[in-house]
């Protein structure tokens, strides 16, 4: 009996990194998704599954705090979450990559690092090497292919200290090798006690077994 109570308090002491409680989003009084419940702990990767139009991207944007949820709440590290309290803990990679096409990959990464700070031991050129863009550091992003631009955005994930990654369709535009790269980055991130939420159409495979599934219904 006593042991159960000890166990319960220990579990309650470590809140999930990202938690959604009865989260739903309304557009003109019509539910886009939800209610969704999930808890994402450090070291966990979850895949959001759903058909086109089921609200995967909307869920991501609600989780970043940019969209206000219709009902329910989002907790980050056990704290209610809003854009004012986010403090760089979350990084979002959406369909728009947030790259300036007139700047080189290195300049783009330096800017992001200036805003968010650097992950311990990370630097821009090493991150670009890691995603297979060595030699393209100085090239204007305008001249890169869609897949290469995506890789620059992936290098940004490596560089920033954010613990929660929200990746909306990270596999889009990537070749087979790029898909393997995303999976490798996600595994590394999990190993560093980060958490990630990924939306995807394709199947995702990890060395550490199948990821958790969060289903959305249209």
């Amino acid at each position, binding site marked *: 009996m006593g042991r159960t109570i000890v166990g319960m308090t220990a579990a309650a002491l470590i809140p999930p990194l990202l938690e959604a409680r009865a989260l739903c989003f309304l557009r003109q009084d019509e539910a886009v998704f939800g209610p969704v419940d999930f808890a994402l702990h450090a070291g966990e990767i979850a895949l959001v599954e759903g058909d086109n139009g089921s609200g995967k991207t909307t869920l991501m944007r609600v989780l*970043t*705090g*940019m*969209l*206000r949820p219709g009902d329910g709440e989002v907790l980050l590290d056990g704290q209610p979450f809003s*854009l004012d309290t*986010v*403090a*760089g803990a*979350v*990084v*979002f990679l*959406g*369909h*728009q*990559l*947030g*790259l*300036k*096409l*007139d*700047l080189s990959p290195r*300049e783009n990464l*330096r*800017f*992001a*690092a*200036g*805003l*968010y*700070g*650097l992950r311990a031991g990370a630097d821009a050129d090493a991150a670009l090497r890691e995603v297979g863009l060595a030699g393209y550091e100085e090239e204007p992003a305008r001249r890169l292919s869609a897949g290469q631009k995506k890789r620059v955005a992936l290098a940004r994930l490596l560089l920033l*200290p954010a613990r929660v990654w929200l990746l909306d369709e990270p596999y889009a535009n990537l070749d087979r090798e790029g898909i393997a790269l995303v999976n490798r980055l996600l595994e590394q991130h999990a190993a560093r006690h980060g958490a990630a939420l990924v939306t995807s159409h394709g199947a995702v495979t990890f060395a550490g077994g199948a990821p958790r599934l969060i289903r959305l219904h249209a």
Partner: protein
Amino acid sequence: MTPGTTTAACAALLRRDLLLAWRRRGDIAMPVLYAVIVTTLFPFALGPEPALLARIAGGVVFVTVVLAILLSLDNLFRGDIEDGSMELLMLAPQPLALLVGTKILAHWITSSVPLIVVAPVLASMLKLPVPAVPVLVVVLLLSTPLLCLLGAVLVALTAGSRRSGMLLALMLLPLCVPVVIFAAGAVAAAQEGLPWIAPVAWLGAGLVLTLVLAPLASAAALRIAMDT
């Protein structure tokens, strides 16, 4: 400078915006070119009578500068919203108002400073008396950031809509009027040898007020614009 601190973030954003403006130098030249063309056309339309030109010089130069700034305002947040950089700014650990303020500063440097540099030349072309030229520069130094700040709030408010140019001009008009009155009033007073400190002080007070409030209002408006 440690990356991720507030100073470093503002410096990085300022550096990026100035670098982007430099990579597209043609766009910076546009407002200046516009101001030069408009002020050059006035003597042709009104006749080269020095007394008449001197009387309208201050007002013409100022209105031209206002319109040139208005032309450039539309792009203040558009690029960042379209390519997803705005999301990056919103999720950054720094207060959005501070980052928006930095963006407005960068915009002022790239759009207004070149105009302030050419304004004395344009004014002398229109025979503005030499003693009034420094007053014109002071007035521009105070009123151009004021207009950029006011404009930024409106640009942020209309950021959600696709064709916002017309709406922006319509909304900015009533806010421009007091600025134009005080600015042109100061130059006219200086031209006639009257004290011009009072209107300049009003402009300064307006600048201080918008400097504090406009970034906060712009940030709030941008959040609403992105919440769709």
